């Protein structure tokens, strides 16, 4: 029995050469188990290949019927109408709009929460606050959708009416705000890890120079933790772009090219939901459209995730 190249060489060379015949017999089912475990681990690669393969396959079918140029430059999105137009910009504008609104909430609030937990809170408070914030990320998104549509929107309608602004029943404003609340823990938790890792000596050096606490935080700690914070921000963007149920429930199903947060819009994800809810025959153009949209969505989030990982890897400051 040869030494498998799959096993750790350090340990295998030790015990594989000295085992008895009886032990060798035992090893045969071992090989099966090892192969089973390898298969389990490979399943993740198969999933990735499956996702990319499926998206590419259906997207190619889509672009046979719709020219890529039209997909990228059209100003209308009407794939379910008689006169079909496929301007993905329309859906991207809505996704961009809800994402930006969400980030306006999640980035400052998340970062400040991270600062509070690592710089101000006692160890005891920190141990309570962090998991409490994590609860926000554990609430099902359909619940947030309910909250956005039936609580936040009516509240904002009353509030904005006093300024003479008419807020539609479906709008990207409340969907974005609630989505921002949902991704606070993503920002807070990851930024806090980065801030917490900044060594105490840096802070003390700041204080020794006569800086105030605020100056130490914004002038020393945050710059030192910048790579981790940036990675957290990018991950938050990726979460917001891929979020589905909140926008599907509260932002509406009206594809339009606009940056007006008070009117109904349709994001990439809610378009996929809209088509999936209908009775779309597999293999039709409408069916392929959701894969083309899915491909766009996948590429955007994938690039964001890769950038986030790269930033953490490359710019991480290593402290003694």
């Amino acid at each position: 029995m040869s030494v498998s190249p799959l096993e750790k060489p350090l340990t295998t060379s030790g015990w594989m050469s000295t085992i008895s015949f009886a032990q060798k017999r035992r090893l045969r089912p071992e090989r099966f188990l090892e192969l089973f475990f390898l298969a389990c681990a490979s399943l993740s690669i198969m999933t990735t290949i499956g996702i990319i393969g499926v998206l590419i396959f259906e997207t190619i079918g889509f672009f046979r019927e719709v020219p890529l140029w039209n997909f990228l430059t059209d100003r209308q999105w009407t794939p379910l109408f008689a006169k079909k137009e496929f301007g993905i910009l329309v859906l991207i504008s809505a996704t961009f709009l809800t994402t930006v609104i969400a980030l306006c909430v999640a980035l400052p609030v998340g970062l400040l929460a991270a600062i509070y937990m690592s710089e101000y809170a006692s160890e005891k408070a920190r141990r309570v606050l962090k998991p409490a914030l994590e609860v926000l990320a554990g609430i099902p998104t359909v619940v947030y959708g309910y909250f956005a549509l039936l609580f936040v929107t009516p509240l904002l309608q009353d509030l904005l009416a006093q300024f003479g602004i008419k807020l539609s029943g479906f709008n990207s404003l409340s969907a974005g705000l609630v989505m921002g609340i949902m991704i606070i823990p993503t920002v807070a938790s990851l930024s806090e890890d980065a801030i917490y890792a900044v060594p105490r000596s840096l802070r003390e050096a700041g204080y020794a120079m006569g800086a105030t606490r605020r100056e130490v935080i914004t002038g020393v700690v945050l710059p030192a933790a910048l790579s981790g914070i940036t990675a957290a921000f990018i991950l938050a963007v990726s979460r917001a772009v891929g979020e589905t149920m909140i926008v599907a429930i509260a932002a509406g199903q009206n594809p339009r090219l606009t940056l007006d947060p008070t009117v109904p819009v349709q994001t990439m994800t809610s378009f996929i939901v809209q088509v999936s809810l209908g009775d779309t025959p597999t293999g039709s153009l409408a069916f392929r459209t959701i894969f083309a949209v899915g491909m766009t969505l996948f590429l955007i989030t994938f690039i964001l995730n890769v950038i986030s990982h790269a930033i953490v890897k490359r710019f991480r400051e290593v402290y003694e």
Partner: protein
Amino acid sequence: MTSLASSSTVLTPTWAPIRGARRLWDRLLGPLALVATLLGLVVLVVLLIDVFRDGWPRLSWQFLTSFPSRKPEEAGILSALVGSLWLISLTALFAFPLGVGAAIYLEEYAPRSRFTEFIEVNIANLAGVPSIIYGLLGLEVFVRFLFPITNGRTILSGALTMTLLVLPMIIIATREALRAVPDSLRQAGLAMGATRWQVVRDLILPQALPGALTGTILALSRAIGETAPLITIGALTYIAYLPPFSLEGLRTPFTVLPIQIFNWVSRPQAGFHQAAAAGIIVLLVVLLSMNAGAIYLRNRFQRRTV
């Protein structure tokens, strides 16, 4: 708060004295950060109060044991609740062995190679893929391609899709649990002449299993709230029967709690909105009990090892 800083101003005369704007900003940041931390929690409380105020009066035995209906006051959650429990048990059945197996391979068997590293990066990336994309994968592979096995838009297709979705989370949690087992245990086992599998089965797994179980339950509690991938693979919203308790039952159409809630929220009538709120309470109770189970397991585990 400022004592440390202000006492040192004497040493650095180039600094402006801590007065005016400098002092104001210093005093402001702490409370501002506290408000930000509490903001999320306040919203959470408001959300819960809102849901309970709308849904509590609607919650009844009749609601739990009725099928969906056209009339909001008769609509119930039974098929969605049963569907969710079915789906999550089936997902656990598939995902737990696969996730633990993958984690065992990566922690206990895999050599440090390019290939292993590739798998690791790949799992990290998969955890960041939006869940709706998994729905598209499930739609093509499980609903269309494996139609002879899954019978299309069925519980089985849903569970398989969910399995792929939760696997990265289970693998990451299980690897952490395996890494927490001290290396000396492995060396002792191998030195006694045990094979690698014997070491894993008899020494490592008993120690790591509670951690793996906790991670799995937490991953499943994410899955039970997932809506988007199941809508994409075409779970129905109107199911007025329970699946037969058999293998054939796995090949029947289904609905789950979040989809039923989504359906009710999307309707214009206020009666359905109340039903949605009541459905959310049921969903949150299921979620809460799963999380409580995970916490219970973790506590038991911690007490045992100390």
